[in-house]
């Protein structure tokens, strides 16, 4: 078979290993303690070099495997510093700074994701980070953190800081199309993970919680919410495979597939997260349950960069050109 969307043995192996590492080091319950994630375990796993070519220190995997690992990161609500690290590694590599690349990949140099707001930046989860990766619509910039002032974030449990934009902050930057597409792909992958985890948590709760003498998951009104979450998730999951393969093979429809994915992923993650809160009822609105964390993560990830305008790209009516 020449069209094959099954995961091969190597892919299953790396994903099983990643899931074991995440389950051991980053269980969702950790978030109740309020501490910022330490990415040492993920770095030790080689997560931030996974998709790089072997001559750059990569592990011989590719973009597809890296994207699938980021889905698992999303499921575990891993700090979005994981996205900043994956992209900063490449920015450092393309600017020829091998020492910086190695330090970021090893987790010795933490990189906070950042977005532009007003005349400056909002840094996300900047604890211990010395630099920030700014996710713009048309460029990625790696900047030094200076004069950052912490302030309360969304729901008071998101750690953010505000930083003015100044000359001399820049370490590296790129507007290279391939890297921007990869950024969109990995952000979307994490959003998919959020959507999947929210779906699973909602379905699990619907199968336990009893009202009117039945588990609520037997009621059609709840069931249909859950079905919508499953459909939403399947859409972006299939699209992620398509986009990752297209990007990995350098196919001409890569930009289109990534843009379609990037357009749907934030809406889907947020829709699933919102339904997860709704299905939990009162406890879903409380800080004590984890449902609200998916809502917040969906907002954070959805702000990291933008997809290309989809109507500007040619639609691939014939799917695959020669690869």
């Amino acid at each position, binding site marked *: *078979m*020449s*069209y*094959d*969307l*099954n*995961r*091969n043995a190597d*892919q299953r192996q790396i994903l099983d290993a990643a899931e074991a590492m995440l389950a051991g080091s980053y269980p969702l319950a950790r978030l109740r303690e309020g501490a910022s994630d330490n990415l040492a375990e993920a770095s030790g796993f080689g997560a931030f070099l996974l998709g790089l070519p072997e001559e750059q220190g990569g592990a011989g995997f590719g973009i*597809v495997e890296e994207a699938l690992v980021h889905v698992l990161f999303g499921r575990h609500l891993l700090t979005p510093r994981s996205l900043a690290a994956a992209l900063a590694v490449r920015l450092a590599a393309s600017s020829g700074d091998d020492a910086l690349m190695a330090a970021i990949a090893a987790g010795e140099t933490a990189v906070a994701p950042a977005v532009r707001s007003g005349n400056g930046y909002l840094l996300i989860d900047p604890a211990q980070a010395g630099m920030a990766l700014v996710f713009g619509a048309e460029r990625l910039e790696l900047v030094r953190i200076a004069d950052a002032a912490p302030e309360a974030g969304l729901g008071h449990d998101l750690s953010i800081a505000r930083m003015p934009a100044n000359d001399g902050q820049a370490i590296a930057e790129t507007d290279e199309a391939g890297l921007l597409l990869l950024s969109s792909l990995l952000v979307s992958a994490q959003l998919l993970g959020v959507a999947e985890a929210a779906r699973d948590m909602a*379905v699990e709760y*619907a*199968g336990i919680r009893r009202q009117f003498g*039945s*588990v609520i*998951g*037997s*009621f*059609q009104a*709840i*069931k*249909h919410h*859950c*079905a*919508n979450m*499953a*459909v939403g998730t*399947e*859409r*972006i*999951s*299939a*699209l992620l*495979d*398509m986009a990752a*393969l297209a990007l990995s*093979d350098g196919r001409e429809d890569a930009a*289109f*597939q990534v*843009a*379609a*994915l990037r*357009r*749907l992923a934030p809406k889907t993650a947020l829709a699933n997260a919102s339904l997860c809160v709704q299905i939990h009822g009162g406890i879903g609105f409380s800080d004590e349950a984890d449902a609200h964390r998916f809502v917040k993560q969906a907002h954070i990830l959805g702000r990291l960069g933008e997809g290309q*305008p*989809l*109507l500007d790209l040619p*639609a691939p*009516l*014939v*799917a*695959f*050109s*020669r*690869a």
Partner: protein
Amino acid sequence: MHLKDTEDHISFRAAARAWLSENVPAGPAPRDGAASRQYALDWVAKCHSGGWSGIGWPADYGGRGLGPDKLVIWYEEYVRARAPSVHDCTFVALNHAGPTLIACGTEEQKAFHLPQILEGRSIWCQGFSEPNAGSDLASLSTTGVVDGDDLVVNGQKIWTSFADIADYQELLIRTEPGSKRHKGLSWVICDMKSPGITVRPIRNMAGTVHFAEVFYDDVRIPLSSVVGGLHNGWATAMTTLGFERKTAAMGMQLDLSVRLEDLIAMAAPKPGSAMAERLADLRAEAAALRAITYRTLFRDQANPSEGSLMRLRFAELAREISETAMECLGAEALADSDWSHLYLESFSETIAGGTAEIQRNIIAERLLGLPREKRA
């Protein structure tokens, strides 16, 4: 994981494209009636003469035994060439009846019917739904009583697409008196010209006739027309429905993508406008639906309920695209046009083949494992 055209695929694609560009009929297809029947049969006959009819059928039965990757290429080229809709009055014959006969029929049944279907000489319809057994198929009550070498059939079917222009029907009836639910049913080939059959066409909200009520009054059907064994009709019917949501679904949804591209070209929305945003969303949704279909087709172990997921997404997207087209048309939406016709027809998508609500229940229960609702 990979999606790559091999040398073999590339030459297959080129051959399909070349043949289609020479042979696709110009001008629109008639919407219903005898003219639509002739148009569809002529097209199948033309495909057959070019070696493109029933290409997924086994070679032993006149097909080419092509696997899903080549079928996908065929459908991609098919919609690109704007060939006649795959979901016309030949759909049941080519995509249900033929494959069901190949899987479960006798040699005589195959020898008589399969060439007629492939060569564009017969139209089939599907007699499954009844007034009290639509989505709840197992509660059907049309009966067939064994009398000598015949079954004597009495009852009624409804929502039978193309019954008014069909030659044969895949008829599901209760043959074991007093049997309940899935047991005691039989799947039989019903000749639509049999004495005792009355067809009452039902005009739909789009103003066309695609389906009908069919009444059976002591209709005699020879026992030799039972497919897959007497009283074993449920298994045969499940075989039939299994064919429905495979590659043929690919043709329908690729067709939808092409239609959406037409709409985007027609609307030419201002960049950044609300309509541009909406059309971009639809384009992304169409890409996602296509990705789901590829995934379902090219996966070793797909959960059968994934068919419901695909069907639901297709149905709702078809309606959303048509609704958007009506908005783009403005006042012209009040006049008859391809778009306004498609809009009205699209209301059937979230009903036919199991309503959107039924599909959601299937997804929740069989894919997510949620419990069934208590039934009174």
